[in-house]
């Protein structure tokens, strides 16, 4: 009996905690919290990204066969990691919007798209710059390169749809549906492309289960740079989401003014 009671209170408290989380879907609460948290995240981002990159660029030995050009991985790998994860985050926020209709969620997805596209572009360009001396070509139809190009196209389509529709709620609905369907097809393309061409690209640089990966000298600054890029994304995302919320408010105020004038 007593056991059941404690179980009951536990689930309740978990439920309450979940509800507390959903409260931040309220734009006012989100603005208050994100305003407070933002300077700290900016600080943390600066503390990891800048030392991580400096460490990676200037204080790692040159790799045999690669020379100095190996140092581009401190930008290439983190941006590529973020490019994929941002799409996953957009998928999650789109689903939250479709299921629970929280405006902050839809706006966060919109805000993330441009950052994700930029990360994809950075990964593609740094890859091309690195590929020229290493593989002797800027571009190869290698599975990973091709998948990233396709991911870039998906980001483009998603943003174009946001830009084309005037009504913000309609736009949020349609882009969310597109994001869900697009995710399935992006995943399919990934496998299709793997099937289509075996590539030049090296295997995963970082993995938990493999015995052999890049030696620790390179690994430590790389992890730091990845964390830094992650925090950079969170920083930009918060700023852009706050901007979107303010823009919405401004539109609402202007609409109200026009109503009162008329």
């Amino acid at each position, binding site marked *: 009996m007593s056991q059941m009671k404690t179980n009951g209170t536990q689930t309740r408290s978990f439920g309450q905690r979940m509800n507390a989380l959903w409260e931040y879907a309220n734009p006012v609460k989100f603005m208050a919290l994100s305003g407070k948290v933002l300077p700290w995240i900016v600080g943390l981002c600066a503390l990891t990204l800048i030392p991580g990159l400096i460490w990676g660029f200037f204080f790692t030995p040159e790799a045999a066969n690669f020379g100095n050009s190996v140092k581009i991985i401190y930008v290439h790998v983190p941006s590529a990691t973020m490019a994929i994860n941002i799409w996953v985050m957009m998928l999650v926020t789109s689903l939250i919007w479709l299921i629970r209709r929280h405006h902050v969620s839809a706006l966060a997805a919109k805000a993330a798209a441009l950052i994700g596209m930029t990360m994809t572009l950075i990964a593609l360009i740094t890859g091309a710059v690195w590929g020229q001396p290493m593989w002797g070509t800027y571009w190869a139809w290698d599975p990973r390169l091709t998948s990233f190009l396709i991911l870039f196209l998906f980001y483009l389509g998603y943003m174009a*749809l946001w830009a084309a529709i005037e009504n913000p709620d309609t736009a949020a609905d349609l882009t969310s*549906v597109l994001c869900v369907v697009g995710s399935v097809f992006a995943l399919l393309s990934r496998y299709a492309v793997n099937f289509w061409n075996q590539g030049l690209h090296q295997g995963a640089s970082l993995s938990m289960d493999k015995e052999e990966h890049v030696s620790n000298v390179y690994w430590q600054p790389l992890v730091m740079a990845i964390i830094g890029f992650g925090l950079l994304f969170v920083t930009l995302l918060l700023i852009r989401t706050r901007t979107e919320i303010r823009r919405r408010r401004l539109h609402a105020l202007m609409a109200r003014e026009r109503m009162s004038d008329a």
Partner: protein
Amino acid sequence: MIALLIRDMRLAMRAGGGFGLGLAFFLIVTTLVPFGVGPDAEILARIAPGILWVGALLACLLSLDRIFQLDFEDGSLDLLATSPIPLEGIVAIKALAHWLVTGLPLTLAAPFFGALMHLESPGFSWMFVTLLLGTPALSMIGAFGAALTVGLKRGGLLMSLLVLPLYIPSLIFGAEAATRGMAGFNANAPLLMMAGITAGSIALLPFAAAAALRVNLR
């Protein structure tokens, strides 16, 4: 539902010549490619399956905006949405009508256009089979893209940006199956993958397209 199918097909065949236009476009694409790459038979035969697939894909894309746009403008889409048939069923029927007037003729014509590209004789049947299994997915995915952009004034260009990336898996597997089959290799894996994409699209995309249509009709 059958009445709707017949109505859609009649409209497509009579009004504005949308029916023949896709085929004519397909013919023009296959004619232009040899001008671009030169008349060398070997090269043409090698790239033929890919060119035919890309041509079929673009021809399919051309007529997509007709699926919902006209009905949306004259208000019959609202009537269809309030009819006893579920909107998902209407989407599926409209995609089927689109396939019957574009995908099927393209499939039937592909072997003949293949002859223009010096496609070798085993290639004819392979083009036919891959397009037959692949083009239904193109129509269904296209119906989804058309549903997304139906409320927009100039949705055509945007729709191509939305729809073409979704066509990539079908294109890769379709062209790969045709190439492998022609060369005498075992083409089961890509063929089955493509058929799987088609089946999955037909099963699931009507729901996504109907959801998008409901948003646009709101």
